[in-house]
């Protein structure tokens, strides 16, 4: 599925969607950024509650196709600008990581 399609089907809110047609394959969940950096794979959707500038950097490095911020977390102005600049798809989910992942299950 595409990043845009996932956001629509799961009822997430798009915060930054420069590449809605990017393919999403597989999912990684984690909040310890250095840990995620070595484990999230290219094209994954990454579910996390971390929303600082380093989140965008890790998303860029690991080449995930969509970051889903769980528990209704959003991006502040500076981080949002960095996500736009670096071409990172970011969405927000009102639910906790487990419920968010359960919505993703079977779709990625």
């Amino acid at each position, binding site marked *: 599925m595409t990043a845009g399609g996932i956001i629509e089907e799961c009822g997430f809110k798009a915060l930054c969607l420069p590449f809605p047609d990017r393919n999403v394959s597989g999912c990684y969940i984690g909040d310890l*950024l*250095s840990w995620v950096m070595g484990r999230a794979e290219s094209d994954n959707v990454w579910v996390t509650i971390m929303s600082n500038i380093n989140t965008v*950097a890790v998303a860029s490095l690991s080449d995930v196709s969509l970051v889903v911020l769980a528990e209704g977390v959003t991006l502040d102005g500076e981080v949002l600008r960095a996500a736009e600049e670096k071409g990172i798809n970011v969405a927000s989910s009102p639910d906790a990581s487990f419920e968010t992942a359960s919505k993703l299950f079977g779709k990625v």
Partner: protein
Amino acid sequence: MKELSLNILDIAENSVKAGASEVKISLEETDETLKITVSDNGCGMKEDFLKSVTDPFTTTRTTRKVGLGIPLFKMEAEQTGGSLSIESRHVELYPENHGTTTSALFYKNHIDFIPLGDVISSLVVLIQGSPDIRWRYTHTLPHGEVSLDTDELREVLGDVPLSAPEVLSWISEYLGEQYAEAGA
């Protein structure tokens, strides 16, 4: 990272890459705080680069000179209510006393404080990787102090390299004994 000792390893690797001949790692610990300082006599950083090292994007992917090490270290300090500071003197402007000092303050009682972890292993890895550098380590604890100076070891060892396995395991035991005495 899961242990601050891995951050120390990462920051000290920057000193190695900067061509330092001496690296000082000092940990000052009270019941409430932990201050980690890595200072070196390497080539230092120019002012505009220094300003950018806490920004993960100037360093990742295209150039990858420092990596995400400093941005993550800063974040880990700040999430305990602490802070990170870096001072640097570039070799072109300070031919005599160039180098970089990175210092991070952590509040240990904050729930998001990451434990120090196995700092002895980090030191052994650093010494093994760069045995010609003078490594000076001090860890001041509330009830004691742990220290190591590889130049002092070199005097005793003579021609035996610091990276010899038996020397490294001796260093590891020596530090472990000091920690036991300091009640850590």
